[in-house]
């Protein structure tokens, strides 16, 4: 498996630099945590990496994944998965169809695709939920579906944008273990941004503090 | 130079169109659609136009689309606008229901196609001698540019349950209104019927009505109309809503009469009261009458604009309107009740029978009872009276 390399990334909003020449190597099978208070540009950094930076920002620097240059690729070609603090399940699709949306197109045949989705649901302890309306699931269940959806797309790296912030304490530990377990088992480089030190401790990897945003 | 060539070409094509014989016109008309522009405030007339459309489609393969107008002038404006935009053919108006100032305006500006009348086979049935308004519209010679299709004459309409002896002179009308404030209404003067109310009064009030047959001038207008304004100044406060608001049209006054707001008004159709009683839009007690010295009458025409896209079909339709079948159908009070423009006595036996068989409603006067028909004054009187009325009472 391959590392995610961020090389001298700078993101600015007009004259103001949010991220200044930020470099980082996320090794495969590890979780690297980027900490910082809100407004430090953590989420913006992730959107640059995934290729979905809002055009009001200007970004420079390279994103390299497994030796391949990602910087100029469209987001849908990068194969970099992302999870937000909201599950963002598509409300018009059933749980199964949400997963099918993610499932890589290289998996062919109706039966095969259905089997893969069932398997993913099983992994998330949600067997038989395929035809359910996502709105009828609990918050934790929805988050697990979101994780499986991201993984079914066969990403080569995973970005986590405070995905645990909305969950209550009891659920949070279990869900962290669930996400990290699945990601690391697949040997993915994982980049987590958070302002919660507990997240960083649970990630058990390198921690980088962005510090307060430059004024 | 180019302009001359175009003019020559225009003349050539016009003459070419003229050379067509009637069967040829009928042949060319087949498949065309006539856009008949006309005031559409009267449901029965709209129904008649629809009927005529079905007939000419069945008989001649000509379709008729009624373009419903609030005001005939809208169609005139359209032709004017088309001319100003250089659209000398393929115009959007094929036929206009027209008379009075609108006709004069179109005739003076050369916006009409024709002469059409002599080319219509049925035109020879028209009574020009006995019904002079068929050939002279508001003192303006028609010159074959407009086809007469129905006659109108002013009648006064009253509710006999509330009035036993309606006023038969213009001064008596004022006396009655003062005794019965709010119960007399005439349509807004911008409406044709409303202006006609003033003209009708002028006929009786002015010392020498003969001057009305000549154009009004700056020199004589004030003197001729002075008695009218003196009379109207007294009448207005006794009108419906103290003369501060006027119903838009004759049909609106009819509604007021049906609601019991108004007891006396006027109409341009002698049979309208009867048909309105029949369809429940006037009380059964309504009757009509005319003034002792007669009432104004005129003819409705249809005319073809110079740039009409479907002239042949328009002529076929106009010719059909003059047929005894259409004329008798229209005069039937169950349809429109409009008086025929034909010389019925000169029709063949079958034609005469069509008219003899027509019923007559309780509120409709006989031809004899309708009495003397006063010719319409020159259009300039109406224009000036309308303007003067606005100046005096519209502020």
């Amino acid at each position: 498996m391959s590392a995610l390399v961020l090389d001298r990334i700078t993101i600015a909003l007009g004259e103001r630099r949010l991220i200044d020449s930020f470099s980082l190597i996320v090794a495969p099978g590890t979780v690297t945590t980027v900490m910082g208070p809100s407004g430090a540009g953590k989420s913006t950094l992730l959107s640059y990496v995934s290729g979905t930076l809002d055009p009001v920002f200007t970004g420079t620097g390279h994103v390299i994944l497994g030796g391949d240059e990602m910087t100029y690729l469209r987001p849908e070609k990068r194969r970099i998965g992302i999870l937000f603090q909201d599950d963002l399940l598509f409300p018009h699709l059933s749980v199964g169809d949400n997963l099918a949306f993610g499932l890589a197109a290289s998996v062919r045949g109706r039966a095969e695709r259905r089997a893969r989705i069932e398997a993913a649901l099983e992994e998330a302890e949600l067997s038989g939920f395929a035809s359910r309306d996502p709105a009828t699931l609990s918050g934790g269940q929805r988050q697990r579906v979101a994780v499986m959806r991201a993984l079914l797309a066969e990403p080569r790296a995973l970005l986590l944008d405070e995905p645990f912030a909305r969950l209550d304490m009891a659920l949070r530990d279990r869900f962290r273990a669930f996400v990290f377990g699945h990601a690391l088992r697949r040997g993915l480089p994982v980049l987590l941004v958070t302002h919660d030190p507990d997240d960083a401790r649970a990630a058990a990897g390198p921690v980088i503090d962005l510090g307060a945003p430059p004024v | 130079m180019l302009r001359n060539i175009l003019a020559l070409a225009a003349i050539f094509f016009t003459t070419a169109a003229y050379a067509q014989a009637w069967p040829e016109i009928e042949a060319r008309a087949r498949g065309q659609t006539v856009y008949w522009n006309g005031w559409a405030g009267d449901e029965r007339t709209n129904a008649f136009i629809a009927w005529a459309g079905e007939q000419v489609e069945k008989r001649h393969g000509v379709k008729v689309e009624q373009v419903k107008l609030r005001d005939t002038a809208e169609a005139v404006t359209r032709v004017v606008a088309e001319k100003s935009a250089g659209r000398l053919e393929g115009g959007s108006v094929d036929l206009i229901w027209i008379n009075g100032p609108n006709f004069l305006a179109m005739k003076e500006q050369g916006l009409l196609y024709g002469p059409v009348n002599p080319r219509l086979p049925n035109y020879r049935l028209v009574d020009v001698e006995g019904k002079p308004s068929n050939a002279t519209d508001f003192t303006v010679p028609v010159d074959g540019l407009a086809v007469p299709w129905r006659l109108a004459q002013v009648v006064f309409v009253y509710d006999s349950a509330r009035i036993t002896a309606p006023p038969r002179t213009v001064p008596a009308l004022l006396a009655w209104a003062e005794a019965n404030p709010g119960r007399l209404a005439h349509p807004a003067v911008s409406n044709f019927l409303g202006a006609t109310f003033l003209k009708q009064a002028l006929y009786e009030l002015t010392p020498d009505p003969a001057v009305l047959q000549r154009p009004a001038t700056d020199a004589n207008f004030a003197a001729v109309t002075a008695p009218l304004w003196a009379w109207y100044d007294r009448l207005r406060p006794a009108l419906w809503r103290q003369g501060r608001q006027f119903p838009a049209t004759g049909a609106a006054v009819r509604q007021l009469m049906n609601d019991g707001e108004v007891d006396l008004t006027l109409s341009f159709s002698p049979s309208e009261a009867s048909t309105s009683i029949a369809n429940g839009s006037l009380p059964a007690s309504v009757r009509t009458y005319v003034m002792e010295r007669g009432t104004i009458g005129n003819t409705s025409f249809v005319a073809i604009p110079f740039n009409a896209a479907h002239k042949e079909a328009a002529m076929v339709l106009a010719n059909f309107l003059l047929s005894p079948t259409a004329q008798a159908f229209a005069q039937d009070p169950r349809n429109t009740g409009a008086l025929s423009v034909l010389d019925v006595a000169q029709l063949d036996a079958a034609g005469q029978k069509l008219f003899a068989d027509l019923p007559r409603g309780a509120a409709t006067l006989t031809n004899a009872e309708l009495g003397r028909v006063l010719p319409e004054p020159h259009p300039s009187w109406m224009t000036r009276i309308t303007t003067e009325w606005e100046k005096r009472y519209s502020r």
Partner: protein
Amino acid sequence: MLRLAPVLTLALFLAPVAAGLLGTLLPAFHYLPALGGATVDLQPWRDLADWPGLPRSLLITVVTGFGATILSLLVALFILARLPRGALLRRLHSALPPLLATPHAAMAIGFAFLVAPSGWLARLLSPWATGWERPPDLLVVQDPWGFAIIAGLVLKEVPYLLLVGLAALGHMKVDRTLALGASLGYSPRTAWFRTVLPTLYTQLRLPVYAVLAFSHSVVDVALILGPSNPPTLGPQILRWFSEPDLRFQFVAAAAAMLQLALVVIGIALWRAGEIVVAALGRSLVRRGSRPRAIVDVAPPLAILLVITAGLALLAIALWSLAGSWRFPAALPQVFTVDTWRSQGMGLVTPVLLTAALAVLATLAALLLALACLENERRHGLHPGRGALWLIYVPLLVPQTAFLVGMQIVLIRLRLDGTWLALVWTHLVFVLPYLFLTLAESWRRLDPRYARTAACLGAGPARILFAVVLPMMVRPILAAVAVGFAVSAGLYLPTLFAGAGRFATLTTEAVTLSGSADRRVVGAFALLQAALPLAVYAVALLLPAVLFRNRRGLRGMG
């Protein structure tokens, strides 16, 4: 391609306005060579000044314009202020769509049927309460001051302002603000007017200007409810424009320019008023006074509004089914479907035409709006206030001011009376409303859905068709319903661009309203109200059926 969408859209819907304004401006100064006006002079203005009704007409135009706007705004604000509480007013929300869908003309006709001296109200109360055996000789509708126009407009403009206000309040944390106010000793209404209103009003400003412009220049409502001697400026311009005498074309153009000036001055005055009111408000805030809540006027106002509108529509329906209905009977003596039967095809054709026209104009507007919004979304654009003003242009420029000139241009291009001209003209009016309705929800869509989809490997087309559009079905249908209703209700634009050949339900209803039988007018007005209402109903019900198992979509739009 998509990047051209905003430019193309602006060109398509502003070009007619610009060309129309120019086409009105030149003849207003007597320049229209084809009509014999080759020199620039002030003759049209002199003729206009000579019209004896001018001072009076201007006065009532301004009275009705400002009267309707001020009254509509106040009523809407009092209702909005009460909205966070009060179940009754919450129910008002469900009464909004029918009120919004009903065209101005139908509402005006129904209102006239209701309050005229011989109207349904008088019939219901006579003779037992009023002693009237015959209708009283009272100037209630078509009154010389235009009060009936004001009432007719208020019935339609309040729901519109409520709709805009509700949408804006949806983004504001009103409950928390009011709770904070309460903790500082302010009654909810005082807190609302001092803290919520200033923010809310910035969202209401342009819609209020649109109401101001519309109320100054309205033609159909004024024809039905307004005085005729003289009328307000709108109908008078139409009257001049329809005069056979060429001279009046120039007068009509000059009057249309005067109308434009009136609206510009009106908006400027309104803006000045805003500043004064804001200053007064700030001084109240600084004084910290805490007036005790007096009578709450919102519930009676809302009830009056809904009941009046409801009875007006009911009166239309009753008349269309009446055989004979003499005063003072409370109900028709005879019920019959004769009117419907005798009108027959005369009703069907306008229904089909109205629907076809509305569908075409709405679809065109929808495609353009979707293209613009998708372009915005894809490229992360955030259009500023300038763009908003541009969208409002057709709603701020009085219709008469550019339609007069637009017809001249259309005739010149030989496009008058064609479907193209008609659909295009309708587009000019449909697009702003449709766009604003749709943009409201579209821009609220969480951009992270699209980002998530992209990171799952979906390209722009798949994101649009598989994620964004399905999630936007409800707002799209709502916007379509709004567009349809706007198109179905257009009077003057249909009349002018259609060369009078296109008889829609609205043109027919207005044409008939002044003259024909109340029963026939009732039938046309009822259909006119029913058609957009049916589309609204479908727009509300269809997503509920399509997504009956998708609870998460219910909040969308």
